[in-house]
């Protein structure tokens, strides 16, 4: 669809790629028709680049580690408990939180596309949306986790959650040792995105 513009006389510009041209055309035509507002697009682009991200989810985790009753609420009704902290909305309207323990290790995937809890984790990384992870983590989770540097004992129980519906999942990782005296804020800083997907554990502070 369309072709690449060839700026043969101007070697400082590289040609626009096919997707760039097509997205520009789509945005331009929809804007001219009055259907979309480019400023709304700007706002959305910025929101997911700078405002919404795993720092949200790490606050949920830290609070659950510190506040036993919050943790109960979180595991019972993830949507409401997460919304208590102000995180809700697109691709996170209906949340389920699953807890990692010494015995049980949960890991998330969407084999069919890329479903992921945006309000708590932001946009998913490319590897989560690509064929290797999506195909393998349901059938050989331990091999995939090993590629991430996570080796689990044979006794441990691995549970893979395939987000085939509109429920969005989040892992509550185990609180690491050596964090007993840390504040909620300090704890949140330890929590990584990968630990909330379940491909990593939260590491004890040095």
């Amino acid at each position, binding site marked *: 669809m369309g072709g690449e513009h060839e700026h043969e006389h101007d070697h400082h510009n590289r040609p626009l790629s096919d*997707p760039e041209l097509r997205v520009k055309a789509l945005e331009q035509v929809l804007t001219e028709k*009055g*259907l979309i507002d480019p400023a709304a697009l700007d706002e*959305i682009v910025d929101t997911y680049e700078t405002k919404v991200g795993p720092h949200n989810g790490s606050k949920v985790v830290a609070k659950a580690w510190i506040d036993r009753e919050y943790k109960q609420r979180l595991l019972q009704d993830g949507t409401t408990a997460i919304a208590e902290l102000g995180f809700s909305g697109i691709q996170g*309207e209906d949340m389920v939180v699953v807890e990692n323990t010494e015995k049980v290790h949960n890991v998330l995937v969407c*084999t069919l596309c890329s479903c992921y809890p945006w309000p708590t984790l932001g946009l998913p990384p490319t590897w989560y949306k690509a064929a290797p992870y999506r195909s393998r983590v349901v059938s050989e989770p331990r091999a995939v986790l090993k590629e991430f540097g996570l080796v689990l004992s044979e006794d441990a129980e691995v549970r893979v*959650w395939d987000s085939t519906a*509109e429920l969005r999942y989040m892992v509550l990782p185990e609180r690491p040792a050596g964090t007993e005296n840390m504040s909620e804020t300090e704890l949140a800083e330890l929590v990584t995105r990968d630990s909330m997907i379940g491909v990593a554990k939260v590491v004890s502070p040095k």
Partner: protein
Amino acid sequence: MNGIHDLGGMHGFGPVEREDNEPIYHATWEGRMLALYPTTAVLGFYTIDEFRHEIECMGATNYLETSYYEHWLHALESLAIRKGIVTEEELYAGHTATGTTKAQPGLNAADVPKIIANGASARVTTDVKPKFKEGDMVVVKNINPSGHTRLPRYVRDKLGCIDRDHGVFAFPDTNAHGAGEKPQHCYSVYFSAQELWGSTVSRNDSVYVDMWDDYLVPA
């Protein structure tokens, strides 16, 4: 649809490749494409299920050879053309032929935070009786629709157990084809890894898959 997108359990894709410090958008156009989703979704000319199905219909090699946001681009172009929102000629030209068709965009910049925060839950408040309850043993139907389904091949005909009832949700298999929401209960269903993958995998492992009433029969 038994399409290439239904990847669970496949072999041959190699190791998981990760990019260090991966940017949110690899190019400006990816960010614009992301934003085109909520800004056009509010216009109501497609459901999320139709959008996914459009991607599923891209063709297997095309799907594998294109990037993630190119899938979204394909879906939105196809839907916008088929639903008469834009024409192919307009997209080629990069300009509208017909001029403004709407006085107000579907989503203004000022409304964005609210729309993002509210989202669009697929939960339906209709009171529908569940067919199953927690602890019930179920068998997954062996359906192979050529249209949209969220029933992956790797669980069909398998024996599972209802782990929890999530409540009543719209049903994608109908919602993707203009056949309505057909609200019904959606469950998290437990499958032992050995049930799915044979006796060589760990006895301790399991896969939980979200499924609607229409995908399941009592064991």
